[in-house]
């Protein structure tokens, strides 16, 4: 028995010393889309995040590809939590994957920092103290688009989005701020590339404007086909279909389109200038809004680590909540449901030399939070 207790004591000492040594280290599990359709988004988030934590010896990152499949994302999360013993998870791009992974993750006491997906459920009734969204609540950019549509004098919009959680949030967000009537409302298949049928409906609907949310390759197809269709209606959408990674593929069809974003490469602050410059020299391309979100996620993590140890969950959470880092977006803070309060800008697609890019034309919504704060009991 005595032998047993000494061994136990020795083990305990060993345990405590190792936790002392590890106290300032954080193990991050990044699950994101790195192959197949939509991999450009995941790669940008990863690259932005890695740039932010570059040179920081206290953070180790395990990166895995979810292939944009919910079942694979769940498996990866289980493995990272149970056998890799990560402290923080991040990286998921798509809302349907986030819905599959986040609730189980945060209920097991891990932190989840979302660099992209912000489904309404996780902002409202399903909010959790360990879940932080560094990007936006899904509705946000679409709300700003609705606000912009009012100021541009649109009265009758045709709106479309894919049939999945973020698509529903998108149309809800637009309708929440848009005061005019709807000429039509369609949910398309997720991953659909051909919009001939929808464009014919737009032509027949008598709309005076089109709002669409079609992230990734879906939006490229839509914009090209829409501009070929000869329908001369103003288009407004969130930044996802007009961002740096995609503009090149859309081509001149995108010129002049107004889109809404929480980030733009011409936001005038030091953190953003440094980010754009560093990103270009590190990866040889212009950053996208996804990259900026990944970058801010990394900076948020570092700011919390400087205040508290990750094992001390309550202190670490408080440190995260303070959001004490200089964001590429300038002013940034968390609302009560751990989603950002930030400015949403209206941008216009322009040509800088031969490169298509965006410039800010106005602030769409100032210090904007989200509509689900009151539903969140935290």
């Amino acid at each position, binding site marked *: 028995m005595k032998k047993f207790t000494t061994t136990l004591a020795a083990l305990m000492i060993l345990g405590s010393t190792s936790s002392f040594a590890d106290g300032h280290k954080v193990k991050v599990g990044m699950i994101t889309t790195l192959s*197949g359709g939509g*991999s450009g988004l995941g790669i940008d988030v990863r690259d932005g995040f890695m740039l932010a934590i570059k040179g920081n010896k206290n953070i180790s990152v395990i990166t895995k590809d979810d292939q944009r499949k919910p079942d694979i994302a769940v498996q990866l999360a289980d493995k990272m939590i149970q056998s890799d013993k990560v402290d923080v998870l991040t990286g998921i791009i798509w809302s349907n994957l986030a819905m599959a992974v986040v609730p189980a993750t945060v209920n097991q006491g891990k932190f989840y920092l979302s660099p992209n997906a912000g489904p309404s459920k996780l902002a409202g009734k399903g909010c959790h103290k360990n879940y932080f969204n560094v990007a936006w609540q899904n509705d946000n950019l679409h709300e700003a688009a609705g606000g912009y549509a009012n100021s541009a004098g649109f009265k009758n919009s045709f709106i479309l989005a894919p049939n999945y959680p973020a698509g529903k949030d998108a149309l809800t967000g637009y309708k929440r701020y848009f005061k005019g009537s709807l000429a039509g*409302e369609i949910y*398309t298949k997720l991953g659909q590339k051909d919009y001939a*049928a929808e464009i014919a*409906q737009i032509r027949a609907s008598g709309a005076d404007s089109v709002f669409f949310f079609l992230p990734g*390759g879906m939006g490229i197809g839509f914009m*090209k*086909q829409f501009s070929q269709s000869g329908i001369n209606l103003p288009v407004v959408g969130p930044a996802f279909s007009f961002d740096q990674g995609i503009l090149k593929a*859309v081509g001149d069809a995108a010129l002049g389109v107004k889109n809404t974003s929480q980030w733009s490469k011409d936001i005038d602050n030091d953190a953003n200038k440094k980010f754009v410059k560093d990103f270009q020299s590190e990866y040889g391309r212009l950053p996208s809004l996804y990259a900026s979100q990944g970058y801010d996620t990394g900076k948020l993590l570092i700011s919390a680590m400087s205040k508290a140890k990750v094992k001390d969950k309550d202190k670490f959470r408080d440190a995260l909540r303070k959001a004490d880092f200089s964001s590429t977006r300038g002013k940034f803070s968390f609302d009560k449901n751990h989603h950002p309060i930030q400015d949403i800008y209206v941008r216009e697609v322009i040509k800088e030399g031969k490169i298509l890019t965006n410039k800010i034309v106005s602030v769409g919504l100032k210090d904007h939070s989200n509509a689900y704060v009151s539903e969140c009991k935290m």
Partner: protein
Amino acid sequence: MSSILFFEQLLNGIQFGTMLFLMSAGLTLIFGVMGLINLAHGSFYMIGAFSAALIAGLTGSFWLALLASLSGAAIAGVLIETLIIRRLYRRDHLDQVLATFALILLLSEGVRWCFGAFPLYLDIPENLNGTLPILDDIIYSKYRLFIIFMGLLIATGLYFLITKTRLGVRIRAGQNDRQMISALGVDISKLYTIVFALGASLAGLAGAMIGAIQSVEVGMGEPILILAFVVIVIGGIGSIKGALIGSILVGITDTIGRIFLPELLKIFMEPASATSVGSSIGSMLIYILMALILIIKPSGLFGKT
């Protein structure tokens, strides 16, 4: 619901169908002649689109790009057939499925190594941009009319190739009795390579033509591959005629269904849920069609029983 809109959607369905035909013709030929289930057929669609985007980027010519898509996919087809696929003809279908699935992964990652993960730019030529008035009130995209025209042209070409030429006779003979035709002194492995390259190049052409109005990106071939399989199951495996009729049927059902079903449901449901339920059922419609056809004709419309 106006008749103009209906007619335009019908054209959209036919256009979608002719594209599916280019994919499924190759797939059904390869299955019919070699008995090979080729899951990697969608990769040739992708290779065609990327070759086209590459050449269009270098030369600025859409027509050269189309040519590049045909030859790029054909070259890839010949290489893959002689190096890998040739070893699979004698194996059972499960081995073929496993090996060609592995090919999908290899080719997708390979293309991503060469071109990166971001979609490439490929646009339609200036003189096909815009619309064309067909009848009084109906205006339709010139490029989509061009796609329909190309599809029909290739269908006619294939018809002549199969029925009127020596190669066609051999292909038909290969479909009917593989041992007999090699016993008669036909170089069967060359025939297989030609058929495989032909199928691959048709898929490549489809990839380039569709890539120009959608997006050229890694993994673009897999969604359309699933539809191509639905088409050849409906049309009867191995039958080119079946592939043509099946393609048009699937194209029209899918397009008309996903637009008019929500409208139909709005008559007796509230608009928001009609939209959501309608689009969900709309995307199932072609599979329902397939199930119905298989109940009536278990080997497809033109399949051998």
